[in-house]
């Protein structure tokens, strides 16, 4: 690097730039926090949705599935599974979930296996509520189509 560009200048860019950008990140985060309530419809987080999220975590669903594109890529995306499997109908979706969860693991040779989690009907209902709530988050219209 040119001699005119000294180590002191490099240091100032590091400390100055780093602090400035971090403050900018804090500011953007503050702004995002103000805007999020409209996008995440948090007013609809019922106790069932919260219990559903805890079940989602306690069974490590993210270890195979993705939700809003994050997680493992071994099993289908679930942020839009309500639309895909329930067609937007809550009762239909809950019915699907009941039979789907009970049928695991599917005995198809060579197919990736979903474990049997032994969830109670109430728990499956909570999980469904969580997935229904998730499907209604404004996530800039992702995924591109219903297949996730």
């Amino acid at each position, binding site marked *: *690097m040119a001699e005119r*560009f*000294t*180590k002191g200048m*490099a*240091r100032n*860019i*590091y400390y100055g*730039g*780093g602090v400035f*950008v971090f403050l*900018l*990140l804090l500011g*953007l985060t503050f702004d*995002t926090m103000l*805007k*999020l309530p409209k*996008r*995440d419809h*948090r007013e609809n*987080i019922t106790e069932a*949705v*919260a219990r559903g999220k*805890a079940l*989602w*975590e*306690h*069974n*490590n*669903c*993210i*270890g*195979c599935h993705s939700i*809003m*594109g*994050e*997680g*493992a*890529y*071994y*099993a*289908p*995306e679930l942020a839009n599974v309500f639309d895909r499997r329930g067609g937007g109908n809550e009762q239909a979706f809950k019915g699907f979930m009941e039979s789907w969860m009970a049928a695991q693991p599917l005995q198809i040779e*060579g*197919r*990736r*296996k979903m*474990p049997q*989690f032994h969830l109670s009907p109430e728990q499956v209902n909570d999980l469904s509520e969580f997935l229904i709530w998730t499907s209604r*988050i*404004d*996530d*800039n219209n*992702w*995924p*591109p*189509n*219903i*297949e*996730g």
Partner: protein
Amino acid sequence: MKFESQMVAKPYFIFALTLFTGQILFGLILGLQYVSGDFLTTYIPFNVARMVHTNLLLVWLLFGFMGASYYLVPEESDTELYSPWLARVTFWVFAAAGVATVLGYLLVPYAKLAELTYNHLLPTMGREFLEQPTITKIGIVLVCLSYVFNIGMTILKGRKTVINMVLITGLIGLAVFFLFSFYNPENLVLDKYFWWWVVHLWVEGVWELILGAILAFVLIKVTGVDREVVEKWLYVIIALALISGLIGMGHHYFWIGPGEYWLWLGSIFSALEPVPFFMMVMFAFKMVGERRFEHQNQVAIKWALGTSVMAFLGAGVWGFIHTLAPVNYYTHGSQITAAHGHLAFFGAYAMIVLTIISYAMPILRGRPHGNSLSAQRLESFAFWMMCVSMIGITLALTVAGAWQVALQRLPEAGEALNFMATQDKIAPMFWLREAFGLIFFLGLVAYLSSFFVGSKEAVTLEQPQLAKPTAV
């Protein structure tokens, strides 16, 4: 070795390599489960194997960073480590906690583990990469505090070089941002937003400071280039890393709830993230080109150059190909992400740890000028085997990802294949990935064997040979 206390680094390095081996074995299991859904699933379901694979990575890299710090900070500070005793205790605590956690993953169902560790009191489990029981997370915090304290006190009583300052800033950031792993609200959007404050601000933020500091240290040692020059480069590289990377976090905020301006901010800033990685390549090659002597540990130089190139490819190039929002709309959460993840983690973080191990381990084993020629030859062979096969894994997953997007994401709703059907179609690429994974494993075996080769041979020259700088 200038200071006796640098020896505490040795168990950290050895344990890091042990966990690395475990990580690769579980990677091979996962790769097979991708194509053969019945493989071992009754004993190790995919989610468990994946958790072990990613958590072992995380922990062995932390062990590597700790070993690196305990080795280089006394030398940089020109003083003994503040408390070698504390470093040894920390090692055993961290190792025991790590082993116990992995055994917990493997021996009991995850829901049972959550129950046994009272996760409901402070729920933090079940989120990607942060699957550790809350008690383990608290343990990680304590280990990090003891580590940062020890390193910080050593720097305080000794020389405050630029490498030291950058390293300690990175370590404090590592400890502070990990605290966000304890924030797990009922609102999934908030959960995800701050989950990235651990994951992104680690790997695309403060870890880059740690990476830069370790690389700069090794380059000074193996090239003899003037510290002033190295430090100026280091400052510029990490400055650009932070300036691009902090707001670059926006590329994770595209599709998880936050507003639309993140589409612009995330795209623009993260498009700049390859720049510091490219500068790191220029830096490494320029320093080696301007070397003041021929260091006999040639393979350590190879690792230092290699990590800069592979980090640029994995984090820089493979990050860029899917970071622009219009592209990411189609590639988000596809095998493209997996491709990027593998090459970036290996190139940037696995390889920097292997770099410092390659430089420091021979010294810790009483070979100040590096290993014997035969050991270096084998290590060099392993270097190429692992690098080439990791590129193979990455290319296979990239093709798989592009293919997946073409079948599942691009077509209109009625015509797109569903997820499982798509996975069946692209299975040949998963077989190819597994084959490269096997080659990688053989490379790792060769690497580990190099530690046991040629220990009886004398090192050819006693003194580093002086040479005129030549271009590389």
